[in-house]
């Protein structure tokens, strides 16, 4: 805020005792500010190019001119600033530097403001005078705040310059895979579709009643997989009640019907035992193995 009104203090960049609205010297030779390019002096165009590239556009250049002289952005001496600005433009022209169109646009805008400053100001609806510089001032301020925001962003502690992300080696990296999820619904749809395709609707295997029996069939087969005799009674769980017993019984009947198991009894009234059906003798593999299991 202070820098906007204490205009008497020379700016930090200002070289020499340049009075307030003096034109901007582009060089100082033996204490004498040079405001015109000496005809006999060769300035390599690259040097000026570098100088101009330091500006991010006409607004930046204007701000530089204003700040350099500690002028208040809100009260720019428009005639003087325009004159200084034009000097830079002419200089650039003289050096045949390619000038961005934006610089010329700004020159035109400055000239227009300057001429309007000389004319009586039009009254707005509220009866207030409108300052012809208002729009320029707004743009300069708007640009300046983002120019400073850019400096602030650059000042943030950032990765690779101020902050270093750390890492540690994982010597034994194991690749773990997540198993896909299967919604039940998807499996049911798959079942419906496959059965529909196969036109197997009437088949007894897929009636509801079969399901608990089929599950029990798998369980009974598992219980018998050791190959030995299993107590018939042990296949029933009293805690399942009558329904459970019925399911087990039906599943045993179904397994017998399919020839998967057989029920054996040593003598009349002796306890019943269940075992897997002996393998057919004509099967070479099972014939080999059967010697191990049949005892």
């Amino acid at each position, binding site marked *: 805020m202070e820098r906007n009104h204490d205009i008497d203090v020379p700016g930090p960049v200002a070289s020499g005792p340049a009075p307030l609205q003096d034109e901007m010297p582009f060089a100082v030779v033996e204490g004498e500010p040079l405001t015109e390019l000496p005809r006999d002096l060769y300035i390599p165009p690259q040097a000026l190019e570098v100088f101009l590239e330091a500006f991010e556009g006409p607004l930046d250049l204007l701000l530089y001119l204003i700040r350099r002289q500690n002028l208040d952005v809100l009260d720019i001496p428009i005639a003087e600033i325009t004159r200084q600005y034009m000097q830079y433009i002419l200089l650039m022209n003289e050096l045949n530097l390619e000038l961005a169109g934006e610089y010329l646009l700004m020159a035109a805008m400055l000239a227009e403001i300057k001429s309007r400053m000389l004319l009586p100001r039009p009254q707005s609806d509220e009866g207030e005078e409108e300052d012809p510089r208002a729009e320029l001032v707004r743009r300069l301020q708007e640009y300046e705040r983002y120019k400073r925001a850019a400096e602030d962003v650059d000042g943030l502690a950032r990765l690779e310059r101020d902050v*270093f*992300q*750390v*890492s*540690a*080696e*994982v*010597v*034994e*990296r*194991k*690749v*773990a*895979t*997540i198993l*896909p*999820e*299967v*919604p*039940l*619904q*998807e*499996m*049911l749809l*798959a*079942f*419906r579709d*496959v*059965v529909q*395709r196969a036109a*197997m*609707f009437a088949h007894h*295997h*897929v*009636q*509801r*009643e*079969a*399901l*608990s*029996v*089929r*599950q029990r*069939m*798998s369980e009974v*087969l*598992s219980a018998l*997989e050791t190959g030995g005799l299993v107590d018939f009674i042990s296949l029933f769980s009293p805690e399942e009640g009558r329904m459970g017993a*019925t*399911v087990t019984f039906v599943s045993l009947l179904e397994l017998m019907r*399919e*020839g*998967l198991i057989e029920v054996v009894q040593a003598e009349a009234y002796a306890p019943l035992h269940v075992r*897997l*059906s002996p393998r*057919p003798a*004509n*099967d070479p*593999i*099972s014939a080999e193995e059967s010697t191990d299991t049949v005892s």
Partner: protein
Amino acid sequence: MESTHLKNVIEAALLAAGRPLDVEQLRELFEDYERPPASEVRVALATLAGEYEGRGMQLVEVASGWRIQVRADYSVPVSRLWQERPTRYSRALLETLALIAYRQPVTRAEIEDVRGVAVNPNIVRTMSERGWIRVVGHREVPGRPELLGTTREFLDYFGLKSLDQLPTLAELKDMDNIGVQLEFGETAEVSAVAATAVAEAESVEPAGTETPRLPEAANDPDVSPA
């Protein structure tokens, strides 16, 4: 040099480097005037190694210097950082699984009869590895083909208490959209507060949240075969 400062610089550098650093490289982190002797660097390394005991990382010496690495105890959870996103199971797998569930115990040949194509051995292996199916026996016919059935894990995964809870084929046939039907079934039954409580208590199964509940009717043991 103050030993904490030295230790911290070494720690920071080893963590930032992403490669092992030897004692000489560590010494070069310091300006000439403050460069610690190699002996001090080694003491600092030993101190650091000790401080990492019981932590997530460890300091080890390898051929090209010292390295901070993840302690092997934690490589299993850490490896999950790079785990592959799951792919979806194929239609063929789902159909095979469904057929095993509904028609168990069942042989591959019987599945092939229904599906009309050979059973891909990878599919059977995938489902076995997942613990959803297993060989429950052999059909005593020439070749003794394996009989496949579903497991308790299968029921757990799908949030079923028993296979009875699966809809019958007749029910499936009537459903143009199973999802809608199943949801209807649920809302219809959630009349009682107790039912809700039970449903919530049961929803701890992994797939519970995504698995639509089945109509209560299928649960009723009284409807089961006589």
